């Protein structure tokens, strides 16, 4: 029904299209506007993708010409390189901890903020600030100091009888401190959640309240379904970003991925192989596996989204 309602609208311009005489000229103009992007997309995106795919089948150290080695980089990666699997495991651990917790916190604070009348703008900005600062080397260094032996977190925890010591020096705990830095930056998804919450019609909640629905029931039956497109957007975006975490792991471990490779996230190992050890072919193979992995995860998310993402206002398509 929605499809038939929108179709005549979108067909309308082509019906009157006869009046728009200089159509060809406008086509040409479009390509002029698009030319920087076309150049960038071909020379700096598509071509490099093809080249990195080619390089992934070669041995290449930046000085001698690449030599073809077939699938050797890939087989070495998957069967002979424990550090590779270590980096995969570390990255997955980090993603599985950081992304859900970040989103839950973002949603919780957004829901709390929705009913705040006074100071909403202040809260929104204050919670958002870490999302901009947190990507910096400065904050990564703060993190290293706070979670180090004798740092604030260590002191606080030993005061309540939990003697963990410095997280930075403990395999297993170090990556957790990196995850906490990501969770700390929940402001960006929160702002998006808040904007989504404000678009849910108040009548829905009023009707539910009249029917005697509890807070939890309203949350489950109104908030979550109505918010599901935004939830999905945040999930995909944060997931893709999390797979590529680099700076905090670099800072926390002094660029080495230690202790015992416990903060050797995927991109840090890729950097190590490519730019420290000069195995550009191997690093390219790693990059392509990352590309495929992110592609697969995104595709799976899109597939499952059909079951739980609910697009309420299909009928408003083409609105402003």
């Amino acid at each position, binding site marked *: 029904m929605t499809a038939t309602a929108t179709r005549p609208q979108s067909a309308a311009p082509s019906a009157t299209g006869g009046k728009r005489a200089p159509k060809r000229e*406008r*086509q040409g*103009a479009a390509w002029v506007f698009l030319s*920087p992007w076309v150049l960038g997309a071909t020379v700096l995106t598509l071509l490099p993708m093809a080249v990195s795919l080619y390089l992934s089948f070669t041995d290449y150290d930046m000085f001698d010409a690449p030599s073809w080695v077939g699938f050797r980089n890939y087989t070495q990666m998957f069967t002979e390189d424990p550090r590779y699997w270590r980096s995969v495991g570390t990255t997955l651990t980090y993603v599985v901890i950081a992304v859900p917790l970040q989103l839950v916190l973002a949603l919780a604070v957004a829901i*709390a903020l929705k009913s*705040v*009348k006074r100071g909403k703008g202040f809260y929104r900005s204050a919670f958002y600030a870490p999302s901009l600062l947190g990507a910096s080397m400065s904050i990564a260094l703060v993190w290293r100091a706070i979670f180090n032996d*004798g740092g604030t977190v260590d002191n606080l925890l030993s005061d309540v009888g939990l003697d963990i010591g410095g997280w930075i020096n403990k395999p297993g705990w170090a990556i957790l401190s990196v995850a906490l830095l990501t969770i*700390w930056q929940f402001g960006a998804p929160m702002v998006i959640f808040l904007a989504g919450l404000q678009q849910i019609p108040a009548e829905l909640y009023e009707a539910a309240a009249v029917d005697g629905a509890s807070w939890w029931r309203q949350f489950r039956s109104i908030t979550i379904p109505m918010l599901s497109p935004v939830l999905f957007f945040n999930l995909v975006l944060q997931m893709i970003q999390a797979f590529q975490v680099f700076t905090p792991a670099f800072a926390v471990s002094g660029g080495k991925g230690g202790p015992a490779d416990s903060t050797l996230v995927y991109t840090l190992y890729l950097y190590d192989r490519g730019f420290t050890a000069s195995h550009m072919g191997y690093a390219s193979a*790693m990059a392509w596996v990352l590309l495929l992995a992110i592609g697969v995860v995104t595709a799976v998310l899109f597939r499952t989204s059909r079951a739980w993402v609910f697009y309420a206002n299909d009928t408003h398509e083409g609105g402003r």
Partner: protein
Amino acid sequence: MTTAPITTAGTARKRPAPARIALHIGLIAVLLVMLYPLAWLLATSFKPADEVIASLKLLPSHFEWGNYSTALDGVNEVGVGRLLWNSLLIACGAVLGNVISCSLAAYAFARLRFRMRGPLFAFMIATIMLPHHAILIPQYIIFNQLGMVNTYWPMILPKFLATDAFFVFLIVQFMRGLPRELEEAARIDGCGPFRSFFSVILPLTRPALITTAIFTFIWTWNDFFTQLIYLFEPEKFTLTLALRSFVDASSQSAFGPMFAMSVFALLPIVLFFLAFQRFLVEGMASSGLKG
């Protein structure tokens, strides 16, 4: 805050005052925990060496301005002024590039009809999700061949070619919201697509352009990875990259100056944030909606 609950207490839809106060207390508590690292950074930058670690107190016993004068000397004989200038140069170049190229591409996608528009738009969206690492090494080789390694071009040139698809998308979303009648009127007045872009659409797109400019500035300023692989001469280092030399050295005596330098590196972002928070927050909100 204390008088408001009394005057509005009669309305049925309002929450009872205690619940609302509890909500504010909860939010402020979360906020205080969140702001602690920033307060810690600022406090530590003033601490004398012996107080940096081992003291849980946030405030230093006396303010050690020496940290800042040490930080001003910079790293590897390169002063902070120079580092700051280098950072600014890259960030401003990137801003200029993104604002120009992304608005051009966005105008074509949002307002013009052309063959292949659908597939190209889909491709552009897909590149938002493309991990940077998949193109990193060939890009490095290209810039190396062009003799641009250890220059700022690898950080600036791509921005002039609209490689930050996120901003193209952001501006497209904004331009789509402008009424069609604007250009129809302009066309009747004899404006071609170029005139309507510069005189009609672009001025109205200003909020989206400002958002693009601020985000580009902050993200470029913070970007560590690109600078790490392309710049190796200390003279060319940015503030972010200069901080890197503290990463390797773990001596605690350098803690004060290191965090004084960190404050220098964060200051422009904080100022930008305070000045433009409305654009930033709203820009972020609108990027996720109306999809």
